[in-house]
């Protein structure tokens, strides 16, 4: 029984990392007032570029860097439309997702079926990995998972306890006020959009290098959308994103577990739907009832220009 728990826990963490990384990125972007619905597209692009760089070089660091950077660069396209041209951010983000899906499906074709060049296997952390249950769950994971563990508090500290974080939050609340205070609104928004893309790209790299190494079309399976919902669930706070991501990972893990033991308590397709149903339920719960204002940035999705 304990072993089963450790097994489920391990898979749960493993399945939550991509959503967690993408959520962290989107939190940073949205805190500055930029809504980027292109997460799914950026994740796919990151996954493809990481897989391709892995095959080409065999170097894990280069592969991760390629995937991450690809996400960041794609985000800059959104930045150009949303910040500089001030077009509707929902449209621009959706376009980014469609672009990412189309381009990766086309360019990724030659990679399908090719053995992955880089596999980031689980690396047990000496000492910690031997703690019963906990060790199995948290400390026998991919190096990118450990990176995510570190990024969560870092992100939180950055947003809530540094001068730059203060500016980011301020821009997300009232860009005109920040501009009048003599701060470059455009630079901050570009920076945060880029950071958001890096998060999504890294999430994609995790999928194609570690979670299920190799490239498959649409391999993100909607996790980008889940990340966007998780931002709201986390009320734009990186620490709470952990809870949301873990819930998502937990449901995914249950599905694997029932498959593995061969019992079908609930039909498999219902289980498959669970993470997404949960996401919807979470959105409803967060948005009804008392205390509805959950600290969302007031200027989310609102473009800024000086002369009105």
């Amino acid at each position, binding site marked *: 029984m304990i072993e089963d728990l450790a097994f489920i826990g391990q898979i749960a963490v493993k399945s939550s990392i991509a959503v967690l990384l993408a959520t962290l990125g989107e939190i940073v972007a949205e805190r500055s007032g930029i809504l980027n619905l292109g997460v799914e597209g950026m994740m796919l692009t990151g996954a493809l570029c990481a897989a391709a760089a892995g095959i080409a070089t065999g170097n894990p660091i280069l592969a991760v860097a390629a995937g991450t950077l690809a996400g960041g660069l794609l985000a800059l396209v959104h930045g150009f439309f949303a910040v500089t041209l001030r077009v509707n951010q929902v449209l621009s983000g959706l376009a980014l997702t469609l672009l990412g899906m189309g381009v990766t499906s086309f360019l990724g074709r030659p990679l399908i079926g090719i053995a992955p060049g880089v596999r980031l296997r689980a690396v047990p952390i000496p000492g910690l990995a031997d703690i019963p249950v906990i060790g199995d769950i948290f400390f026998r994971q991919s190096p990118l998972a450990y990176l995510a563990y570190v990024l969560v508090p870092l992100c939180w500290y950055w947003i809530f306890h540094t*001068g730059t974080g*203060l500016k980011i*939050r*301020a821009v997300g*609340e009232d860009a005109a006020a*920040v*501009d009048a205070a*003599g701060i*470059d609104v455009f630079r901050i928004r570009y920076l945060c959009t880029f950071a958001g893309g890096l998060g999504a790209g890294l999430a994609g790299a995790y999928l194609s290098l570690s979670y299920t190494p190799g490239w498959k079309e649409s391999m993100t399976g909607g996790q980008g959308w889940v990340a966007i919902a998780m931002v709201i669930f986390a009320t734009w706070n990186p620490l709470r994103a952990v809870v949301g991501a873990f819930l998502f990972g937990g449901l995914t893990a249950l599905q694997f577990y029932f498959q593995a033991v061969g019992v079908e308590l609930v039909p498999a397709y219902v289980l498959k739907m669970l993470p997404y149903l949960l996401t919807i339920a979470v959105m409803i719960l967060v948005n009804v009832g008392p205390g509805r204002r959950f600290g969302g940035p*007031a200027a989310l999705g609102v473009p800024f220009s000086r002369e009105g």
Partner: protein
Amino acid sequence: MAMTTLSSPVLALTDITKRFGDVRANQRVTWTLDAGRIYALLGENGAGKSTLMSILAGRYQPDGGEIHLRGSPVRFLSPAQALASGIGMVYQRFMLVEPLTVAENILLRRGPIRGKRTRDIRQIRELAERYGLLVNPLAPVRTLTMGERQRVEILKLLYRQAEILIFDEPTAVLTHAEIDSLFDVFRQLKEEGKTVVFITHKLEEVMAVADEIAVMRRGRMVSRVAAAQVRSHHDLARMMVGREVILSVQKPPVAIGEAVLTAMGLSGPAGADRLKFQDVDFEVRRGEIFTITGVAGNGQEQLVAALAGLAPMAAGTVSFRNRAYTAARWRRRTGDGLAYIPEDRDRTGSIDAFTLVENFMLTRLDAFGGALWVRRRRAARATAAAVRDFSIQGGGIRGLAAHLSGGNRQKLILARELSRRPDLLIAEQPTQGLDVRATEEVWQALLRQRASAAVLLVTGDLKEALTLSDRIAVMFRGRILDIVSAREAADIDRIKLLMAGLGKRE
């Protein structure tokens, strides 16, 4: 009448021009400013005052002209650059990030340095004390009154060591006492050799602190005089408007009719930890202007919001046009008869992204449309008439409300609400930000409303209250202390005492 000064000016504007589409907001404006002086900038609504100041502060780029700072030409591409050169501005709409604290707003650009927090806070406290700008650095801006917010804005500029401080209608949101202390701050800044420019529509304020007066009309700088040379308000008013202004309104007697609105035992708002108004009783009768006054923050704002149906009341009954409503049912009341001119014209009163016509239809959809259609032509005609009657200047009826100057926006809302022919008109600070002529027009319009309606006026401006009202209720800490008839001169002193919470009749 030009100023003669021996030292060279700190700031010189030459032929500054700025267009917004077809509107020429500034046309070849030339002006020089010296250190250690206080300047008042006057002009009608839409004259281009805010635009000119925003150019100085780096928010807008001029289409033509030059700015010289201490003799050398400068060009500000952003507020950041202007601030770096020592020019800072406090805007009509405060530029503070509401969820952040006072200290965070002040330190925003530099970013608070970790570990040095206590030192930063102490520095802000010291600065605040030096200028008498009392405000708690740790309070979130959201919880502050307008007066406190303004102090934060001034602290922001002083913290950045601004040498030229610009204020866009700084007194519009302040109480009398706050205005006096603001002027003390101005004088202190002047003594330290800084330059202060403030925009205002209140002539007595100009006489109280300004050294020099500049007047704009239709985008041009039309005159500049030393304050000492101005003998009367009339001189100033004439300079602003270009013609004689009466400045005193006729108040023809009107027969007082039945009570249109009767409030009994109102308390609220519902759901708040602390009641903002309590046991409020009064009635407003057809043919009279009933005024509620008091120092800002004594519950008038919440009371009006509740009466206008914007916020729920906790207890009491309202009877309106002979129908009684409980607190809960008043909120859900639909139907006509009540018009409301809110204080916050930018958010509650109108929609930025709508044209003037669309804004004009906003509270009159019944008149201009049904479920399936909109009578656009008719609405356009009505809007055009309003624009003519109230001389609303801007980009025309198809222009966006966002592009109207502050005063013109107020006139649009006023025109719309008056055109509804209400039984009760609630007017909240209706002349805030209006120039002398527009103020006069609004006053006349309110007095005319008495013929057909009851008028509930809420104002912090004693002069306005005394000019217009038949009866004045003074609110203090959420209660109406007394209701005074506005006829006798001795009442002025009594009202002032009541506003301070003193002198309640036993």
